[in-house]
């Protein structure tokens, strides 16, 4: 290539001329256009890349090295219409996002943000020139539209967005100019931005006004007629389908709605084709790498729709899948995946489990039967139950020895780790358990089971969702352990929908078991389900949890003073914006949780793993595994590429 074309010369020299005035990303960038989009740009259907990017794009420094655009990310989704996984791969674009190691927050769609010291007024600045995937500018008008037409619109709203309210009062939105807006709370709300960073909770970056207004009756008087044309009853149904806030499926099944995400479903949304769904690069994506190349690197994400995890396992063994840590990455599959590394040309990465425990036994502390209620609320009774469990045996049998005995708690090594909370009453000691129980319920019936005050056998029925197979395995072992101390423990398995009805929405259960929760920093503050009863994930105290949000509700149960104080402490934590103060308050919450001892568990979960093809670059070796930090979303899939 001895000669240089005139065109290239002009391009090169003008790029040089502009270099002095331009920021670094642009200087390096030149006029590089994606090969994937070049024909569109040449045909005049798309403006050149420099005009598509915002004035101040987000510059991403790749984890290992800068790559080049192009290629497909070969991916898979298991199971029918379940699209809630997509947020992990291409849907995580809130105003502010979690950083890659989940220790804090970083700017994303918002160029910057700030909060006043009282934590009542948040100011966000958007990027000038930021555009939706169809080229229309993204401005505060879109945020205003979300607030007016959806969130505060009595007919269109679905409720939710609890982090937008304090004490039942909704925050005010104040638009300053095209790029700046404020959110003003009536009282302190310390975790507003953290809540927005949690997966799928920031709706402000998902409502393109120019597209959605045609479906809303206040913006388009013909919206009802439009709905009828589509066979729907009213504009509300049509608007809900288009805005997609009902659930993840509705959101992603609409391929027409413009987005800010890195990839866009252009050729039919997922679900239309039963075998695959393909997302292609968003020409207007607002991020560049430190060399000035517009992200994402991958031109397309190709999802194979797989009905059964075993098929996905075979496909992964064959090397058809680039990155996978869901569905198939179970302890049981590890040996076969390990053996297939060479032929499948892949390796492994580590997932840090973020759940507070593999399983938490939860006695219903708001039991309707006064005798059982009193018994369960006796601390020594719960201690005895906890001492009765041989946790190491459960860990060995069910988790192949991976893990160590612990109550639902923070992970060791976390700054907020509390040893008492994690380790108290975890030693296997049936003698101690019997001693504790002898002081409480000494009488036994003919079969050796203890009797309560009214002479009834003390039986506890654990109601378990049958899809949680590890729970069933653990209970098989745990039930004889409870029986050995004279408690007639039983397990009743049931279909998930029945379980939801009886336990999540019911009151008349003795006990259940569940998992999740969080074991580190920010996550535990946002999801404190095992430490303080605040929401309907707290199966140990449904009445107290309801009291936290709706004290006037008939079904709410006024908690004892110590629990009430704990709830108030958590309330003040939520009202604090200063991270140092947050940590201090959280440490107190955890100490109280240790003293209150609501639930007891088995083990902190051992680390999980994921499978990655050897040619994939820029994926972290270790990541948290969470839904709120939607693995691997915050680790920036836009800068993954294949060498």
């Amino acid at each position, binding site marked *: 290539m001895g000669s240089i074309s005139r065109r290239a010369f002009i391009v090169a020299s003008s790029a040089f001329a502009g270099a002095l005035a331009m920021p670094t990303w642009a200087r390096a960038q030149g006029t590089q256009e994606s090969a994937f989009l070049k024909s569109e740009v040449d045909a005049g259907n798309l403006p050149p890349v420099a005009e598509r990017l915002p004035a101040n794009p987000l510059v991403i420094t790749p984890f290992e090295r800068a790559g080049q655009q192009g290629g497909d990310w070969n991916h898979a989704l298991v199971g029918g219409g379940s699209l*809630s996984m997509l947020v992990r791969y291409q849907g995580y674009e809130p105003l502010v996002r979690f950083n890659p190691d989940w220790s804090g927050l970083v700017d994303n769609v918002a160029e910057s943000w700030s909060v006043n010291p009282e934590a009542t007024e948040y100011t966000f600045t958007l990027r000038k020139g930021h555009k939706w995937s169809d080229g229309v500018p993204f401005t505060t008008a879109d945020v205003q539209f979300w607030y007016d037409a959806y969130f505060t619109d009595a007919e269109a*709203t679905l*409720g*939710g967005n609890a982090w937008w309210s304090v004490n039942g009062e909704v925050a005010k939105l104040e638009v300053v100019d095209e790029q700046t807006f404020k959110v003003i709370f009536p009282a302190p709300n310390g975790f507003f931005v953290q809540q927005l960073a949690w997966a799928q909770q920031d709706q402000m970056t998902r409502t393109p006004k120019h597209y959605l207004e045609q479906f809303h009756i206040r913006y388009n008087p013909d919206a009802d007629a439009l709905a009828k044309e589509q*066979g729907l009853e009213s504009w509300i149904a049509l608007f809900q*389908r288009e805005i997609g806030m009902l659930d993840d499926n509705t959101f992603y099944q609409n391929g027409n709605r413009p987005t800010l995400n890195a990839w866009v479903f252009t050729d039919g949304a997922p679900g239309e084709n*039963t075998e695959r769904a393909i997302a292609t690069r968003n020409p207007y994506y607002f991020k560049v790498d430190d060399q000035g190349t517009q992200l994402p690197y991958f031109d397309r994400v190709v999802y194979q729709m797989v009905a059964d995890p075993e098929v996905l396992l075979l496909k992964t063994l064959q090397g058809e899948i680039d990155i996978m840590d869901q569905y198939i990455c179970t302890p049981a599959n590890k040996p076969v995946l390990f053996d297939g590394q060479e032929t499948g040309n892949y390796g492994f990465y580590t997932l840090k489990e973020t759940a507070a425990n593999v399983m938490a036994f939860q006695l219903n502390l708001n039991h309707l039967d006064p005798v059982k209620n009193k018994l369960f609320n006796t601390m020594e009774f719960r201690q005895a139950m906890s001492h009765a469990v041989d946790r190491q045996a459960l860990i060995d049998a069910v988790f192949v020895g991976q893990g160590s005995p612990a109550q639902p708690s923070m992970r060791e090594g976390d700054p907020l780790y509390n040893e008492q909370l994690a380790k108290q009453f975890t030693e296997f000691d049936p003698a101690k358990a019997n001693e504790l129980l002898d002081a409480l319920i000494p009488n036994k019936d003919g079969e050796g089971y203890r009797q309560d005050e009214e002479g009834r056998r003390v039986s506890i029925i654990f109601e378990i969702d049958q899809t949680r197979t590890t729970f069933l395995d653990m209970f098989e072992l745990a039930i004889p352990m409870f029986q050995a101390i004279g408690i007639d423990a039983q397990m009743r398995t049931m279909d998930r929908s029945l379980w939801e009805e009886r336990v999540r929405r019911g009151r008349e259960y003795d006990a259940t078991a569940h998992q999740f929760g969080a074991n580190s920093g920010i996550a535990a503050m946002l999801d404190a389900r095992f430490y303080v009863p605040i929401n309907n994930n707290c199966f140990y105290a449904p009445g107290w949890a309801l009291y936290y949000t709706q004290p006037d509700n008939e079904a709410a149960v006024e908690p004892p003073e110590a629990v009430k104080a704990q709830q108030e402490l958590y309330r003040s934590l939520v009202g604090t914006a200063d991270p140092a103060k947050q940590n201090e308050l959280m440490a107190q919450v955890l100490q109280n949780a240790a003293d209150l001892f609501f639930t007891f568990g088995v083990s902190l979960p051992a680390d999980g793993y994921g499978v990655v093809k050897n040619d994939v670059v820029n994926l972290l070796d270790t990541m948290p595994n969470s839904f709120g930090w939607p693995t691997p979303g915050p680790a920036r899939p836009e800068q993954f590429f294949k060498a």
Partner: protein
Amino acid sequence: MLNYVIKRLIYMIPTLIGMSIIAFTIIQLPPGDYLTSMLASMADSGANIDPGQIQRYREIYGLDAPMYEQYWKWISGILLRGDFGYSFEWNRPVGDLIWERMGSTLGISIASLLFVWAVSLPIGIYSAMRRHSVGDYAFTFLGFIGLAVPNFIMALVLMYFSYKYFGQSVGGLFSPEYAEAPWSWGKFVDLMAHLWIPIVVIGTNGTAALIRILRANLTDELNKPYVITAKAKGLPEYRAVVKYPVRIALNPFVSAIGWVLPELISGVTITAIVLNLPTAGPLLLRALISQDMYLAGSFILLMGVLTLVGMLVSDILLALLDPRIRFN
């Protein structure tokens, strides 16, 4: 004959009404509804759900209306507009969802049905004529193995072999590189390389039963005097057997058609899930699990219609095949 068919068609109407009511009721029977299962899976994946939202969702989905109202909404749509309702989970009309899977479903089902007949007819005839021979035992043994091994295990094993020894992309009907390609010889070969697994898996299950039925029926016929007479008069054995006894022994094949039609849609669900086939079975299962009631209800209704039609067809065929059967 025509009168008979018309009468049967009229009888179908009340049956269908009954079936639609039963189908709809059964779907409503389990506790909770589509929202319960949707919220359960959302809560499961970590999303925060405000209990106050649930009531709002119910109104939007129309799930707060009483059951007879929901039923009427559904059935009137079908009768008046041919509209099977809207799938909650897929956000698309139920009709579209079902139809787009019909092609591959019928293709695979009919291919495997033909496979079953092609294998079991000759074997059944052979086994009946050479009873207690080595060949009879060998085929019977294979047939029973096919019957005894669960379909999904066989599917997994065959897939593993095709991965291990042919290095082929498993599951589905095409390899990724052909999935988006236009039709070509290569794509056809690729389709055939995938299609044999489901056909063999689904087929082996059916062959054993048919072989046994045919063998038993034919054995009864072969000892009847008219066969002996035919042979004594010098008719070649092949003609003496195929002309009359086989025809009579075919009766059970034909009368089973009533069950074959609905089987075509739902019969191979587990196999289809394991093999990742884009057929209707997995869609139905998914709809039932998530309590997507209009989709599930329409499926069940459709299968009811197919059963009724199948019964009618098999009755008519039976009359044509065996002149001794009369309508009355």
